[in-house]
């Protein structure tokens, strides 16, 4: 029974993710794309729950939906022109068939790789209490990376302010 629920949930979330992602790149209105992007992020966080990464699922909703999707909507609103139709057209100069072919080929190759690779599955115990273990690892083993990421956020903030503020006359 549990197995069935898990399977059904996986297919629902996978379908949401893929369909929304497809919508993001095919919709011709940027606002629609941004909202579909948010939906896609929700689908992905559902997949994280199924993978027992509950903390990551929460982070995904908070950061991607709460911050990144909102920034995209904001950016779209601030940079749109009078007509809102055709704000996110697909390139016509590049032959779109070639691009489709390249992307399709990429999927086929990757699926082939997934199918033929002998994965080393681990039979280890799955960690239940992920937040505390994550916190411990980040503040010990991965300390250098954490500090570097903090510096990165500071620098990105300074830079974004300088760029967006513009020239003072």
């Amino acid at each position: 029974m549990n197995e069935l629920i898990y399977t059904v949930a996986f297919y629902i979330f996978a379908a949401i993710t893929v369909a929304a992602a497809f919508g993001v790149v095919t919709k011709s209105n940027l606002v629609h794309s941004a909202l579909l992007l948010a939906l896609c992020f929700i689908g992905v966080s559902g997949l994280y729950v199924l993978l027992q990464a509950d903390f990551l699922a929460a982070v995904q909703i908070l950061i991607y939906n709460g911050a990144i999707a909102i920034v995209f909507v904001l950016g779209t609103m601030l940079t749109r022109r009078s007509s809102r139709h055709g704000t996110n057209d697909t390139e016509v100069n590049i032959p779109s068939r070639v691009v489709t072919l390249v992307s399709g080929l990429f999927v086929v190759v990757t699926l082939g790789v997934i199918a033929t690779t002998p994965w080393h599955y681990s039979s280890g115990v799955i960690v239940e209490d992920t937040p505390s273990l994550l916190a411990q690892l980040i503040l010990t083993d991965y300390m250098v990376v954490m500090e570097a990421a903090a510096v990165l956020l500071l620098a990105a903030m300074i830079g974004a302010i300088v760029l967006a503020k513009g020239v003072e006359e």
Partner: protein
Amino acid sequence: MNIALLTSEIAVVILALLIIVFDLLMPRQEARRSLGYFAVCGLLGILVYTFNQHGASATVYHGFFVVDKFALFFKQLFIVATILTLLFSFDYIEGLTHNTGEFYALLLLSLVGMMVMASANDLLTVFVGLELMTIIFYILVGFDLRSSKSSEAGTKYLILGSAASAVLLYGMSWVYGFTGSIVLSEIAAHITASPAMLLGLGLMLAGFCFKMSIVPFHMWAPDVYEGAPIPVTAMLAMASKAAGVAVLLRVFLVAFADLQAYWLTIVSLLAGLSMIVGIIVAIWQTNTKRMLAYSSIAQAGYILSGLLAADAAGVKGMLFYAVLYMVANVGAFAVTTAVNNQYGSDKIDDLSGLSQKSPFLAVVMTVSLLSMAGLPPMAGFVGKMYIFMAITDKGYFWIAMLGLVMSMVSVYYYMLVVKVMYSKEAKNQQEFTASVSLRIVALISLIATLFIGIYPGPLAELANAAARSLW
């Protein structure tokens, strides 16, 4: 655990934070020149300190961050490049923006990113260091708020760079998934030639080649180099590229050494293509920065070809070349800055008559360009020789031959620039001025290029020691 190993990185971060604070405290109208001097002095102190770390070969926490001779070599290269870049660009930066303090601080923070990359011993640290450096460069490339070229260059770099990062990251995820680890030495222990591993390796190679602007992942370089402010272009060409080399070397020679049979052929093709495209297309350029961009693509090809040897001799050649390329570029960009300060543009034509107006700068430019072309007795000749000897030993004679032919061709277009400086009449009779610090940097570049070319022993010794610490 040994936090002391992080001292130099922490010091640079503190220096950057101090500059931000001082920038806020200083009165609005006051010139920010003092902040620049402060940054240079601070970096000099840190440079001296890094010599203290020599001989150490230790890691912070489970091998995630390693300080060895290889890492130190690159860190010192980055710091020297930053110091020289700051020195020759004081005037330029003050004319560029009112946000001078932020500019210096961001430049220093990107230096931190490079230093983290040089020491990174696992894929996660590699990735975060790389992004720290690259994201700051997106900002710096677009820093000239009055120029639409600058924002165009910044946007192009951001889009292509982020896409390349995503590809690199996807590759890393496959490598991690197959080997179950992100630490380079453990990856090496679990590696086998499975499809997932090869896919990951290919994607990662593409990502790194983008950062080093290797053909066919070079399309961003000319536009970004042309649109960016000159000091940023200089840092992109010298330090960012060297950081890419540092990471590439460590990842491919430590983690992927067992799969050599698969990546050597691809690397040889990429290196050959870069030499050809970089040098042929450069001939038609009319903008100095764009010409230097194509030249940097070719130089990246030369540096990458050293990887074909996959032994200490090849790595030594690459490290040696990275240094002499940095030294030569400092000279070329310093002269470009001086000319830009004078005329406000960077056309090759603007160099005309430089030999009468400022004979010294004309000589510096000539020596730098000829060093990149690889003419003796300049340093470039020795560097090319080291690399070609190392790869000929391993049977890549054709790459060495191609490199030789291409450097002959490159002499032609470098000579075109020299001809403009020496035989064309100056556009006007305006007095040519260049600041003292810029002249000092140009002098350092000149002396270093000739010194390394005539007496390569000491640097080769250093490079050799650094290369050996990888094994």
